[in-house]
């Protein structure tokens, strides 16, 4: 089962490079479905994986795996429509045909499908790996597999974003490798003889050399923190998320960041067992707060909606790091935020793809009146915004509530104060932008409004005129044209629905799994 989960998407990815793109699209959904079923089976059965030194099934890993599977399946359905729409859009644009980017993009689609499948395989490997170095190998592999996804549009801007992504993340993750080696040195100095795996290290954590362990943790936090998007190492994230095509942005933001967090989470577990929980907690809280503050400053003045969502991801990763740093109930809140952020943010990024296809621009000031122009996408977008901003029915609210409560209980009053204040600023900034997009005036809107006004004048002067009626009909079809097909809206609804359901009814095994993951960091006190 474990082997299939990792190897199957990898082989399918290689195959996808060579088969026609229409078959590739179908393969994408098929593998997504098989992967989802296999993950659920893994959740139920929990077999011992092969090579127990290198791989293990841990509660936090299972949790991430299930989120990855679900998201990937829904995103693969969305991708069908998105890739088709993108292709038509490019072929209809004459400039693109002349400059050859249109043809290039169609070529790029095969690479896109192949890479996204290999990306799935590497992410699965991250969630199931237990050996420190295997974890590193898998996380570095996710960087390499996702780089072609960002370069999908073949523009200068996407090239820049990809270059930044590959260089910053590779160098950052090299720091994590150094950190992993330091932890292995901590074993040597402490004369511990055990496999270099997270589960083995957690059980012998007390005998590890504390100085090398601390150094190792700092390097791992900086390394995986780069990948997770913690400020000040976050600079690649807004560029990559805004330049990537929407299905890829949704995957990057929804699950890739979680994978990097998993590395930090597991190392933090070792720190807690070694009695260094305060040391690691303080560093995590600091990085978390810096990320939230950095996100707040950029969200207030943001001009592009995809970058806005990217900075919101940085904010949420900050919240998660902050919660993990507090420990106990805070970790529970952080894990809730992690799950719900994945579900809601990927839904938002998918909807942003609809907006990009509809408006044809990423700038907030050129959008507007989404409620009239794209009513169905609007519902998904606005509900997603409500969720991510922390409105009560959604899980982010509950998660943040737990984190704040834990912060007050453990006596971190100043940190909790900064945390709440920054969240309020972000909420204000985010809703301001959101109102502009949803209800603000739009150019498209003005066109139709002016046009219909003239039409109305004409109708008034000529009384009944069949010709004008046809024109009005044309306008309304034009308006409908901005809205996308159902296959590009349903996945978002499903993601949001899952998030809402999880708030009111959490399956017992899911609750137990979260509890097991939290238990190692103080549990619910």
């Amino acid at each position, binding site marked *: 089962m474990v082997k299939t989960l990792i190897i199957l998407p990898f082989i399918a990815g290689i195959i996808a490079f060579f088969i026609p793109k229409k078959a590739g699209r179908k393969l994408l959904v098929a593998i997504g479905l098989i992967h989802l079923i296999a993950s659920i089976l893994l959740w139920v059965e929990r077999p011992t994986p092969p090579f127990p030194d290198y791989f293990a099934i841990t509660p936090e890993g299972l949790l991430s795996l299930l989120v990855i599977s679900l998201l990937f399946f829904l995103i693969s359905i969305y991708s069908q429509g998105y890739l088709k729409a993108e292709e038509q859009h490019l072929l209809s644009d004459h400039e693109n045909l002349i400059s050859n980017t249109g043809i290039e993009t169609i070529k790029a689609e095969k690479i896109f499908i192949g890479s996204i499948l290999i990306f799935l395989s590497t992410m699965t490997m991250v969630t199931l790996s237990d050996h420190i170095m295997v974890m590193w190998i898998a996380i570095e592999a996710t960087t390499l597999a996702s780089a072609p996804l960002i370069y999908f549009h073949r523009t200068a801007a996407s090239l820049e974003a990809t270059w930044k992504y590959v260089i910053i993340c*590779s160098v950052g993750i090299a720091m994590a490798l150094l950190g992993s080696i330091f932890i292995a040195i901590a074993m040597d100095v402490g004369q511990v003889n055990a496999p270099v795996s997270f589960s083995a290290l957690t059980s012998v954590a007390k005998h590890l050399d504390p100085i090398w362990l601390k150094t190792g943790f700092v390097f791992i936090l900086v390394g995986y923190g780069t990948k997770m998007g913690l400020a000040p190492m976050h600079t690649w994230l807004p560029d990559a998320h805004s330049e990537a095509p929407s299905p890829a942005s949704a995957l990057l933001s929804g699950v890739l960041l979680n994978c990097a967090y998993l590395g930090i989470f597991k190392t933090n577990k070792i720190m807690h067992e070694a009695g260094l929980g305060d040391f690691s907690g303080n560093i995590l809280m600091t990085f978390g707060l810096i990320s939230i503050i950095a996100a707040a400053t950029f969200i207030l003045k943001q001009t592009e909606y995809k970058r806005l969502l990217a900075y919101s991801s940085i904010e949420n990763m900050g919240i998660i790091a902050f919660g993990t740093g507090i420990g106990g109930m805070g970790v529970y809140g952080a894990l809730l935020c992690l799950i719900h952020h994945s579900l809601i943010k990927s839904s938002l990024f998918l909807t942003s793809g609809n907006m990009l296809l509809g408006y044809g621009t990423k700038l907030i000031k050129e959008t507007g009146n989404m409620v009239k122009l794209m009513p169905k996408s609007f519902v998904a977008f606005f509900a997603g915004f409500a969720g991510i901003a922390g409105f009560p029915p959604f899980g982010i609210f509950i998660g943040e509530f737990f984190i704040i409560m834990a912060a007050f209980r453990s006596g971190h009053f100043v940190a909790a104060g900064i945390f709440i204040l920054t969240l309020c600023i972000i909420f204000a900034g985010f809703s301001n932008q959101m109102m502009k997009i949803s209800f603000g005036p739009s150019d498209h809107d003005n066109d139709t409004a002016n046009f219909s006004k003239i039409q109305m004048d004409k109708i008034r002067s000529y009384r009944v005129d069949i010709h004008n009626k046809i024109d009005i009909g044309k306008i309304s079809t034009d308006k409908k044209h901005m809205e996308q097909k159902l296959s590009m809206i349903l996945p978002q609804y499903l993601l949001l629905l899952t998030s809402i359901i999880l708030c009111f009814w959490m399956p017992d095994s899911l609750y137990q799994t979260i509890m097991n993951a939290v238990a190692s960091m103080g549990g619910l006190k």
Partner: protein
Amino acid sequence: MLYSVDTVLSFALLASLFALGSSRLPGLIKIVGFQGIVVSMVPIFIEHNITSSAVTFYMFTMTIRGIIIPLAIYLLIKKIAIRREVQPIIGYHASLFAGLMLIVASSIINHKLALPATTNSVLLMPTAITILVTGMFILMARRNAIAMVLGYLMMENGIYLVGTTFSMGTHHIVEFGILLDVLAGVMIMAIMLENMKQKFDDVDTAFLSELKE
């Protein structure tokens, strides 16, 4: 006390100084390749009981670090680079001076650390730290994208050297995975360099400044 491994390591140390002072890409590639070969030879001098599988692995590392990757980058610049200067942001003399200071600093750090089981070498940790930071320095202080990739490679050489200080035991399979990741990473960077050349007709990273707040 003079150890045989220190003689080898001093070559790697010298190579990082040369790298800081070199202004041309082909030279820099040769230096990084040479350093790769030296670095992958180090475990043979350190380890006491060498198995045949270990030797095969070291040969493999040497081939990838010292020959395949540098050769790939060399072919790449033959194909794309018109300008072959590394385009420094920080000048060569300042870089060299920083390199010397770095060697001093890493020796001091090495004295302060309680290091395990490196009884048969005095230079190992200082060299590793120097190479690692030199790599980062080149990555940040050169505008040419190929020089940046070479800086990244140098960094990886340094990390590999840190890795030899602890007994990985028979975990060659894991090290092999790391090596494979590095190789794939360099290949992806190379593909992007080709695209960069097509788009901007240069590999100067100053062209990559469109995305800003």
